[in-house]
């Protein structure tokens, strides 16, 4: 009988992280790149929770809270930047962004 061990959760998290990384690399729309960052952050959260159960300590779940807050702050600032860029260029594609080029 198969048993669900910590390894399975870690593998799942790694797959999720890889998919997020892949999307980050191939997509051009800034919004979708943000969603891929969320995928990667969630993959890390899953490893934290799995390790928290594995070692029987609550600190992993506290770390997830902090990641959650940082992710929320990042989304707020990032989306505000995307909106203000969109006002100027009427495009959310990252390839046309060269306003801060030196």
């Amino acid at each position, binding site marked *: 009988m198969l048993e669900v061990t910590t390894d399975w959760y870690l593998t*799942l998290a790694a797959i*999720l992280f890889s998919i997020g990384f892949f999307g980050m690399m*191939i997509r*051009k729309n800034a919004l*979708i790149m943000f969603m891929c960052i969320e995928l990667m952050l969630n993959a890390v959260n899953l490893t934290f929770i799995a390790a*928290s159960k594995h070692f*029987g300590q609550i600190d992993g*779940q506290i770390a997830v*809270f902090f990641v959650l807050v940082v992710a929320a702050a990042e989304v707020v600032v990032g989306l505000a930047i995307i909106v203000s860029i969109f006002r100027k260029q009427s495009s959310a594609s990252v*390839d046309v962004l060269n306003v801060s080029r030196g």
Partner: protein
Amino acid sequence: MFELLIFFLPASILIIGALIVVFAKNPVHNAMGLVMTLVSLAIIYITLNATFVAMVQMLVYAGAVMTLFLFVIMMIGVDKKEQTSDSIKGQTFLVSGVFLILISLLGYVAVNSEFSWNLWFPAVEYVVEGTPQLIAGTLFTTWIFPFEIISILLIVATAAAIALAYDLKIRNKDA
């Protein structure tokens, strides 16, 4: 049997949702794929005894963050064609190769029993329940300093979002 089902059902929905996020053309579909991923992740958290974190995940991620995403998608417009040509030559091909290598490496490590976590770090016998009491007890004693710092981060992020979204030109035209 039930244990396997409760792992594989959310896990497969999670991976399907993640693939929708990456490959869907319509941004609203991407956002819905992300909701799928986040909800099934919350279910997995419950099976890992992290009930409170699962609840917060639903509230903050599937609630607040996704609402923000959908707002911005509606604002920017969903019917804009995304340009698909590579700005660096062979970019998609290269990344796909790296991705395949990564996945096959992962598959090897997952299948190979030498890399089992139980061999390296023995699991504990007792179960820790992620109840609000236990989390608060640790958060407000050991982690109180990071907790205070994170409140400053939230204030700064809010102020930054307002400063960025505040359009000076439109404002001056009205006045």
